[in-house]
């Protein structure tokens, strides 16, 4: 009999940022592995596109603005009652803004932190409620970045937020382990996505080629990162918590 250690059958997984890029790729893959998905995003049409590309039955989507951080814990509570208790949560929503320090006002820092860090913290807060997670606990995956360990000019506020994710992830992993909640992060390098397109907008072809050359295995794909997210959600990672998994084609191996 074939065994798939990444089988997600019978698991309910919430994915934020599910309307595009990494969130969409992760949702599609996890549905193929048997999970039932609740997709979160702001854009109803694009959420529907993701919903249409999922395998299996019973998936749902919810238009929700994670910027409304005070409402996140209550939203989880309500969705656990209507959609079902969560066995996995993937926080793929994130803001990347290329802003050199000279033009990084407090608003720039705060808007990035709100989605990348505060929303992540409130998702974790929400699942501390017993009635929100499944009987076997829950696996949370946060999306960090290589910029938490390697600097990039123009990304100071973004990098600061992604570094904060690591601190949040490790302390949450310890605090929530007794409740059988695992908390991990993936740290992607540069991969093809709408976010990368936005980041590359201001760069010349030569600069983009240089970024590619810094990844020994080249620029990645969203599916490369989604595979690692699915692994961390799955029972194959049942003994993994507080871990930051570099998925960067060797970028940080230098």
């Amino acid at each position, binding site marked *: 009999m074939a065994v798939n250690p990444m089988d997600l059958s019978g698991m309910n997984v919430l994915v934020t940022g599910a309307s595009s890029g990494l969130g969409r790729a992760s949702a599609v893959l996890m549905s193929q592995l048997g999970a039932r998905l609740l997709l979160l995003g702001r854009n109803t049409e694009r959420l529907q596109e993701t919903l249409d590309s999922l395998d299996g039955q019973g998936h749902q989507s919810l238009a929700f603005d994670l910027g409304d951080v005070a409402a996140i814990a209550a939203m989880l509570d309500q969705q656990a009652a209507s959609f079902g208790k969560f066995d996995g949560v993937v926080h793929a929503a994130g803001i990347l803004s*290329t802003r*050199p320090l*000279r*033009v990084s006002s407090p608003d720039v820092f705060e808007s990035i932190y709100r989605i990348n860090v505060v929303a992540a913290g409130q998702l974790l807060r929400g699942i501390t409620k017993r009635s929100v997670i499944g009987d076997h606990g829950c696996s949370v995956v946060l999306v960090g970045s290589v910029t938490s360990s390697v600097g990039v000019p*123009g990304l100071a506020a973004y990098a600061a937020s992604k570094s904060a994710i690591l601190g949040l992830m490790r302390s949450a992993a310890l605090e929530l382990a007794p409740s059988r909640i695992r908390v991990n992060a993936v740290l992607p390098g540069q991969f093809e996505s709408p976010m990368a397109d936005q980041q590359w*907008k*201001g760069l*010349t*072809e030569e*600069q983009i080629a240089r970024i590619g050359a810094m990844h020994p295995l080249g620029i990645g794909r969203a599916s490369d990162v989604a595979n690692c997210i699915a692994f961390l959600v799955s029972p194959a990672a049942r003994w993994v918590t507080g871990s930051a998994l570099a998925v960067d084609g060797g970028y940080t191996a230098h």
Partner: protein
Amino acid sequence: MSTKRFLELVEEGLGMPEGSTNEGDRFIDLEAWDSVGALSVIALLDEEFGVSLDAGALQSCNTLGQLAGLVLKKAA
């Protein structure tokens, strides 16, 4: 969009004193014009006018006035 406001944003993005630039100034003559300065100006123009410029569009302009014209065209 006024040219005055455009020049203010360029000055802010490049960290130059207010009123120190003119439409006729060439980018290559501006000491503060470098890759980080370009990213800063792109970010400010996007925020203020909702105009998304790429590096190629910027390279096609020799003077601040030409860039102002491009932004105006895109914002229209």
